[in-house]
């Protein structure tokens, strides 16, 4: 049985971990970019980023002062058994984290109608649920979202678009974000389905570990050429110029009707992303 207490502590721990350590694959991508970029400023900026990430990990400090708002993707195994409330555990876990985390968090949870800020708010943490048939575990991904890169996501709905139109739109969103989203970023793209589903696909593909190409060669090729295209824009690390604007492009698609939503979102260079699987026997596997 998966207890309320366990979900509460694991979800709080995922949030905490995502603030202090950037994923290993992301460090490798930043190092690779640093070795490759032709711009002095870019290479220096990438070195500062790597130094900062190392310092945060060593000092168990935050990589970024903007801890974002808590966002969780939860996938419930149909054979997973729960001994308590799941959503309540996540909400209580975040409350407890706010009360105990060192250093403390700033108030980022914002009421969109009054702009008042605090630690709590309607629908916080933001949790989406899905189901994994046959699994005896629950899988949880935590990806806190802050203004810096959250601000630049976009979605547009086309009617029977060509690949050319889709890719052009993605490039337009990239150009609009320009220097602003703390590059080098991870770009998530969701194509098809419905309005809500495309956004979710974009977000979930963004959280895919690096090196996992889309299984369909046609989509994998699209990811590869878009990465090359985005890095040809020249915005570079922190948008002060260079060849390293994106570390990865992940594309996901689903069938839909003839109207085709295309959603594009970004994760900044610190690529906050932490995951765990909790099994019925209480075992927890952590990942990035």
């Amino acid at each position, binding site marked *: 049985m998966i207890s309320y207490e366990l979900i509460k502590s694991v979800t709080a721990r995922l949030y905490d971990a995502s603030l202090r350590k950037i994923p290993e694959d992301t460090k490798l991508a930043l190092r690779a970019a640093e070795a490759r970029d032709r711009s002095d400023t870019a290479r220096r900026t990438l070195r500062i980023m790597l130094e900062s*990430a190392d310092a945060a990990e060593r*000092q168990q400090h935050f990589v970024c002062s903007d801890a974002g708002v808590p966002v969780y993707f939860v996938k419930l195994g149909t054979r997973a058994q729960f001994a308590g409330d799941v959503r309540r555990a996540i909400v209580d876990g975040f409350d407890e984290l706010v009360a105990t985390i060192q250093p403390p968090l700033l108030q980022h949870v914002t009421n969109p109608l009054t702009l008042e800020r605090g630690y709590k708010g309607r629908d916080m943490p933001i949790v989406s649920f899905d189901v994994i048939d046959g699994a005896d575990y629950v899988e949880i991904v935590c990806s806190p979202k802050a*203004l810096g890169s959250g601000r630049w996501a976009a979605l547009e709905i086309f009617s029977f678009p060509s690949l050319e139109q889709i890719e052009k739109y993605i490039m337009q969103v990239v*150009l609009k974000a320009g220097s602003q989203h703390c590059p080098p970023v991870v770009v998530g793209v969701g194509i098809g389905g419905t309005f809500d589903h495309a956004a979710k696909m974009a977000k979930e593909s963004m959280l895919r570990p690096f090196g996992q190409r889309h299984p369909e060669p046609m989509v994998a090729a699209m990811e590869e050429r878009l990465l090359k295209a985005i890095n040809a824009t020249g915005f570079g690390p*922190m*948008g002060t110029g260079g060849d390293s604007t994106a570390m990865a492009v992940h594309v996901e698609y689903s069938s839909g009707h003839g109207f085709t939503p295309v959603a594009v979102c970004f994760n900044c260079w610190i690529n906050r992303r932490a995951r765990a699987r909790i099994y019925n026997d209480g075992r927890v596997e952590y990942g990035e």
Partner: protein
Amino acid sequence: MSAVRELALPLSETDVRSLRCGDLVYLTGELVITAGMPTMQRVLDHIAAGKPLPIELRHATLLHFGGYSVEAAGKLQVVYMNPTTSTRFNAMMPTVIRSQQLRAVGGKGGLDAACAQAMRETGCVYLSFPGGAATLYSNAIREVVAVEWRDLILHYRLVKLRVERLGPGTVGIDAAGNSLYDGLQAAAEARLPDILAQLAADRAAAPGGGAGGKAGA
């Protein structure tokens, strides 16, 4: 080749005018930070009303940084700080830069052409600090000199700090009016047709390649 500069605060106009886009700087001395739009609005209101600001900004270095501060045993401490998005302040900064004759502003993401113009007139630079370098920058804090407007949430307050070798920051806009940001945006727009042509060529060569549907099919 851009230079690496150690700069003492307050900056002189001569220092500032000698900096060029791409130069790397470390700052030592006193500067002021805030991450709040309501804060900058309050600065503007004070300027408009001719009221003195609680922290002097004349010829100051004012950074768009947010920080977590605590008061323990009567002593103020900033536990961490980090740059925030400067472009949010685009509409407000020209007045602040001109009226306070700011020598340096900074944060991440740059400022627009109207700000760059004000900076050119007064002799002011924009410094870009990587978002997500909270630990490095927090390690540079030596003393919290003053915290004002405590009715605002922590990272919105006006905070004066003494720092030692805060950096490195990159000169993103210099006092001659050059901006890394404007140039890059324009260059990316100009490159877009070539980038799209390359995407088309890559599509044609890819598995299932040109197999995209035809628009409006």
